[in-house]
């Protein structure tokens, strides 16, 4: 009798403790980013009530648009199982080129020319990573520095400015608005919708997931792996060109280094959204969420009086947090028992 009840007790106890511990771990790991986000929002709002005002919200979205547009393209690259660390330096290139050409051949020709040149850079990366199967980390890290050199050579090391800032319609993409909504936000929304549909509903999107999820199985299913990766980098480059256009149009003048460091913020947004660095998972919708979370946290910290440059540290901490939680969610616990 007592033996049985004792065992029953042990059973229940053993189950309870192991289950609840595991469950808490899993929930924390899976929803960790959202929980952290909510805590941030609450803390920011208490610290500074302005945080949740419509004006501030709109300004957050607006300032996130450039990062956001680039993150959309990088989402394709990451899902295909690769990395793109060249987007920041490529954006500097686009910005400088379009500003320079604006005065030389006029905005109407400058914009398509800049897009074509940026797409060429994307094609080079796509060729090296897709067809030659070189490691994307090495290739895009190299391109980061190579494109920086290209930009400096192109501009002769000088900053670029549009001569007649009053007499051009070029400012529309960065400063204009339609029905009261800023154009950068509209561009971001339109691109997100278009690319979101492409990724989730077209054959090409399906191929991107297959190539990133299991490249060998994709090959065995007749999917052209190299071409798929190539197109992902073209999409990424097109997004970068759009971001460069917004940036150039917003300020009508720029330094050579406007995009410096943005590649990490972009990657942070994509990972925050939950795309796995191993490839095969992630969505455009999640990336948009990631972009917003990053934007709000950075804005909140600024409102709380954090120095602008401290943001770089904060971004890094956020990346680490996101990657850790991603791994923890897969393991189902926060600590690894391995040494």
């Amino acid at each position, binding site marked *: 009798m007592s033996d049985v009840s004792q*065992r029953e007790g*042990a*059973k229940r106890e*053993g*189950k309870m403790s*192991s*289950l609840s511990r*595991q469950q808490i771990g899993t929930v924390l790991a899976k929803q960790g980013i959202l929980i952290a986000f909510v805590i941030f929002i609450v803390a920011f709002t208490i610290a500074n009530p302005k945080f949740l005002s419509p004006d501030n919200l709109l300004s957050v979205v607006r300032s996130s648009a450039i990062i956001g547009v680039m993150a959309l393209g990088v989402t394709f690259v990451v899902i295909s199982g690769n990395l793109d660390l060249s987007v920041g330096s490529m954006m500097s290139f686009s910005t400088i080129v379009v500003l320079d050409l604006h005065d030389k051949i006029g905005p109407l020709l400058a914009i398509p020319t800049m897009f074509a040149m940026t797409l060429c850079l994307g094609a080079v990366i796509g060729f090296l990573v897709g067809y030659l199967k070189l490691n994307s980390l090495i290739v895009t890290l190299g391109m980061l520095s190579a494109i920086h050199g290209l930009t400096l050579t192109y501009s002769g090391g000088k900053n670029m400015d549009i001569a007649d800032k009053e007499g051009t319609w070029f400012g529309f993409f960065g400063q204009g608005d339609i029905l009261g909504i800023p154009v950068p936000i509209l561009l971001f929304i339109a691109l997100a919708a278009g690319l979101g*549909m492409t990724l989730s*509903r*077209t*054959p090409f999107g*399906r*191929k991107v*997931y*297959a190539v990133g*999820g*299991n490249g*060998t*199985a*994709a*090959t*065995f*299913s*007749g*999917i*052209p792996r190299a071409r798929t990766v190539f197109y992902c980098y073209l999409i990424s480059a097109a997004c970068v060109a759009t971001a460069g256009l917004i940036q150039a149009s917003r300020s009508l003048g720029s330094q050579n280094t406007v995009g410096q460091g943005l590649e990490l913020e972009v990657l942070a947004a994509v990972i925050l959204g939950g795309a796995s660095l191993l490839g*095969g*998972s992630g969505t455009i919708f999640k990336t948009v969420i990631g972009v917003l979370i990053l934007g709000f946290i950075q804005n909140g910290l600024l409102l709380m009086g954090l120095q602008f440059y401290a943001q770089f540290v904060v971004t890094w901490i956020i990346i680490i947090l996101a990657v850790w939680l991603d791994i923890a969610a897969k393991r189902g616990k926060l600590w690894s*028992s*391995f040494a």
Partner: protein
Amino acid sequence: MTDVKPVLRLEGIVKTFPGVRALDGLSFDVLPGEVHALMGENGAGKSTSMKVLGGIYQPDEGAIIMGDEQVVMNGPLEAKAKGIVFIHQELSLAEELSVAENIYLGELPRKSFGRVDWALLYERTDAILKKLKVGFNARTRVGDLSIANQQMVEIARALTVDAKAVIFDEPTASLTDAEKVVLFDVIADLQAEGVGIIYISHRMEEIFKITDRITVLRDGQYVGTVETKNTDEERVTQMMIGRKLDLSRNVSHHELGNVALEVRGLSCGKLYSDVSFEVRRGEVLGFYGLVGAGRTEIAETLFGLREPSAGQILLDGEEVRISSPADAIARGISLVPEDRKGQGLVLGMNCRDNMTLPQVDDLKAGPFMAEGAEVAIFDQYRDKLDIRTPGWKQRVGNLSGGNQQKIVIGKWLSMHPNVLIVDEPTRGIDVGSKSEIHKLLRGLAAQGYAVIVISSEMPEVLHVSDRIVAMYSGRVMRTFTSEEVTEDNLIQAISGLTDDRAA
């Protein structure tokens, strides 16, 4: 028997996943020194129950009892420390590491300051490998080994600890007959030491050869336990699937059409040379041989994955060069590859998307995927192949091994190929579904498809083929018709003994 205390007992184990009750009150025990078979259809819950035992899943209800105590396994290493060793159905090795590192992963022998004691590691590993009589050593990189040899590495893991119970989940699925003999020796040794062994397999002949008792599961529920010596295949099948099976040799032939595929003097470096054969519409051509005989490589050449060094391939009488899998698919060739996890499936994708992957470009409504048509294809093959899954949205990685294999088969059947090549099509598939798939392959031939079946299971080739090509070490030894083939002359041919014609 009642006086022997079981090494291990499961009591009323329940385990649910979203949408699936994988285990529904499972109870059974394992005695020391017995080989206990666990049988059931694909998705019956065999692997899941073993994962509960191995500490990979926590049960929702029920208890695991070892000796007199109830135990809770919080993880694989804890289970191993308690003496439960689990050899997985799906290989779980680190390809970049050496054999020795894989075997002792997580518990490498240490010297001072945490340095790994390599000499001791290699010495211990080589001692184990010697017992297993394998042809590689402790320093070999696992990625360089064949699937069968990787399986042997998994098995070697079992021998590193003082095991109380060892679980083999379909260990022979990719082993040759010779390797099986070694495995059964290992099992006999463990048995003699009083270790309790749980053995999962779909192969009846093995079950009746080495096990003492058989426990049958159906839909996560316990059906019953029988003594192996008091039962037979028919009764066990009846317990598993509730009906009998036809396991006879193929005698029927369909009307043959023209030659769909002809291969003349095909060679590919050292892999195989001077291979010639033809398949007609309406015919099933079997390829039988030992692992490494070059059969898979021929299939890969026909599918555009390898470039032949000499010879011709003719489709419908016309010579073709097949440059890529996409090219092969466009020409109406399908290949069900031998490694479902590595080559057949994207595990993170759902069932439907996996099944329609080769035809994504053809299933369009405007610029978008025609998702309705995709679901229709999935439903059709789920019913045809009896795939057990809560729905098309389930990740393929969450399906049981056999059901994963069925997804791969469905994927290629749904392409309606002219030439269907299947490489080890029923690996890991339960007896009931196996005979369904055999029937299906025969039926496809009857509809005018040309079918090539590569298999290492003699009953399978004998059962489905109209003609059988016997291969040995990259060469065609002989082509048999189903009238002239016997088990003996087939075995002779694939062992490289050429005097069988004279005999």
